[in-house]
């Protein structure tokens, strides 16, 4: 039977998979043999920048991630903090930059879908979405189309699943002309004793697939998301995934219903590199092996190869390990919600990822080598040189200067955007977009969460360390300004090509600044995402480490808002 492995591995094929010679040699030595086609595909996605964080890991390790209220820091699907009364806030931010440039509606929509899954995978009900957007110059021929499509896509997905999109930020700068940034954040709520993790356990336990069927969607999307753009990648038009928010909504409800039982041992969403990254991650965290029978995978298209099934990025899918004997009960729940449910394998003690197809073993790789042996680079960098402040003449007409500023694209009202988002569904949005931070009540209580996303790329470009500090501090101030106590942040680090020393210098500088600010404010980083190679024909974006901060207030009746409450009140300026 044709299974793809008859395809010969050539140096060109290896290169097309984004692996350099040295990396390929590493694979051969880890496996003790040449990989076949299926295995090569799996290594290539696991070792891509997107999945392996090979350029950033070294520096990310330096960030502060701990505080007494941190239940789970980076390393799981999302960060978890304790917000008192046995409740936890679970949140993360993620980029969907390249797909959104190619197909703004679907790119942005599936970005929202992905980040929602990261959060409800951990047992949380998503309660708020945020989005941090950067576009090129307002009069660049593409900007209008991209902005309209992205906003419509975020609304199209978020509105349909019924999670309010409560805030965000939007900037325009020519450096994003060929490389827009679409960063989406989700915040969810769970009980601290009902949090789910991805570590698989229990040899023989069933591995279960739920959600939508697998098609040939976005195969190689994960590698695409890490490869620098050139003009003709627009022409090549790699397959873009289409999101199905309706199915996502059903998936949320079905997963939360199953999570209320004790059936789940481990659960993981299928994000970039779908079945590959989810199974490898679950097995690796649990220190076990996985055997998958690919014939059992629910398929949307005929004659799919193992390679395609393992690399497909079809949306709205999850992988779980269940306690033995709970399959029927779980199946009933997913049938009620009209979702696919299939036992596709089981846990083994081999430490390998073993793939069967048509009764044959078509792939067999040590899980360790896919994760721990992935390359890690300490890329060379040059710190951004300090610049002298520039003298600017005072404006002749202050009134006009103010009007120019607030009428400018970077400061004008964002009402056009947020009115396209349902920011009130779920009935707990008590501070809508337009203020310093969005505030969402913890359902059924007087407690509330405050959320803000911020970064000023211009500052990060001029002085990465200062810009990194400022971004963290701004979320802290925005959260404080509504009356909440800032607790922790997530982040999405959008930069250019890390193989360039100056860009790597920006990255290292921003992280240093962020780390300092977090330490000074006792405001740890609990989750995040890195998006590199945001560059078109050698010209990179402004360094854009977007920060998403979360705080809590015990009594939301005491919330502050920016509206002036009446005439005759005193205006006070505080600070330096």
């Amino acid at each position, binding site marked *: 039977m044709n299974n793809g492995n008859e395809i010969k591995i050539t140096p060109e094929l290896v290169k097309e998979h984004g692996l350099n010679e040295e990396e390929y040699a590493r694979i051969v030595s880890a496996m003790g043999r040449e990989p076949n086609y299926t295995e090569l595909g799996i290594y290539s996605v696991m070792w891509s920048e997107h999945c392996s964080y090979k350029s950033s890991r070294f520096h990310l390790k330096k960030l502060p991630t701990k505080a007494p209220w941190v239940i789970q820091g980076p390393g799981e699907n999302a960060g978890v903090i304790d917000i008192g009364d046995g409740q936890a806030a679970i949140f993360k931010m993620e980029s969907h930059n390249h797909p959104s440039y190619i*197909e703004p509606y679907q790119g942005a929509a599936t970005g929202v879908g992905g980040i929602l899954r990261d959060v409800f995978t951990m047992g949380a009900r998503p309660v708020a979405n945020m989005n941090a957007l950067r576009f090129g110059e307002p009069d660049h021929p593409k900007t209008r189309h991209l902005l309209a499509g992205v906003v419509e896509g975020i609304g199209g997905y978020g509105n349909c699943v019924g999670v309010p999109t409560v805030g965000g930020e939007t900037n325009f700068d020519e450096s994003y002309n060929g490389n827009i940034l679409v960063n989406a954040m989700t915040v969810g709520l769970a009980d601290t004793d009902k949090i789910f993790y991805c570590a698989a356990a229990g040899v023989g336990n069933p591995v279960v697939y739920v959600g*939508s069927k697998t098609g040939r969607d976005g195969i190689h999307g994960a590698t695409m998301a890490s490869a620098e753009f050139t003009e003709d990648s627009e022409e090549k038009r790699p*397959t873009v995934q*289409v999101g*199905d928010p309706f*199915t996502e909504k059903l998936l949320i409800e079905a997963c939360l219903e199953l999570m209320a039982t004790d059936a789940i041992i481990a659960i993981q969403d299928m994000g970039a590199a779908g079945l590959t990254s989810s199974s490898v991650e679950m097995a690796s965290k649990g220190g076990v092996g996985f055997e998958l029978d690919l014939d059992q995978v629910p398929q949307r298209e005929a004659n799919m190869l193992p390679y395609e099934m393992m690399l497909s990025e079809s949306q709205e899918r999850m992988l779980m390990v269940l306690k033995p004997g709970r399959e029927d009960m779980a199946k009933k729940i997913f049938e009620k919600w*009209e979702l696919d449910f299939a036992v596709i394998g089981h846990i083994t003690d081999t430490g390998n990822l073993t793939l069967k197809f048509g009764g044959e073993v078509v792939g067999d790789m040590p899980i360790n080598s896919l994760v721990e042996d992935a390359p890690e680079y300490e890329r060379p960098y040059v710190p951004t040189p300090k610049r002298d402040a520039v003298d600017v003449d005072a404006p002749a007409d202050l009134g006009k200067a103010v009007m120019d500023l607030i009428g400018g694209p970077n400061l004008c009202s964002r009402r056009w955007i947020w009115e396209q988002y349902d920011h009130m569904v779920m009935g707990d949005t008590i501070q809508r977009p337009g203020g310093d931070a969005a505030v969402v009540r913890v359902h059924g209580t007087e407690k509330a969460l405050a959320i803000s996303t911020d970064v000023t790329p211009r500052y990060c470009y001029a002085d990465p360390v200062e810009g990194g500090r400022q971004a963290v501090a701004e979320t802290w101030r925005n959260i404080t300004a509504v009356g909440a106590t800032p607790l922790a942040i997530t982040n999405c680090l959008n930069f250019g090509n890390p193989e360039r020393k100056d860009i790597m210098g920006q990255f290292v500088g921003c992280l240093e600044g962020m780390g300092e600010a977090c330490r000074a404010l006792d405001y740890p980083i609990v989750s995040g995402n890195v998006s590199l190679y945001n560059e078109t024909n050698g010209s990179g974006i402004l360094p854009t480490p977007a920060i998403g901060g979360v705080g809590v207030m015990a009594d939301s009746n005491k919330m502050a808002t920016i509206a002036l409450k009446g005439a005759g009140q005193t205006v006070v300026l505080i600070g330096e």
Partner: protein
Amino acid sequence: MKARIHVTLKNGVLDPQGKAIEHALGNMGFDGVEAARQGKYIELDLKSTDRASAEKEVDEMCRKLLANTVIENYSIELE
């Protein structure tokens, strides 16, 4: 002249609408439907009376606006 344009999803692209229609028809007791796909149908009234130039122009409209060629195919009939 009239242009009749069909815009359909490319092969292999997920079609949530089609899937939902299939499902709903099944639930309503129509069990003779194996698959359903949904696309768009657009009619344009054109000033032009020249077939060749109209064809070219409508094709450009499709590529630039009416179809999203990343995920959709289109076909044009003139009459």
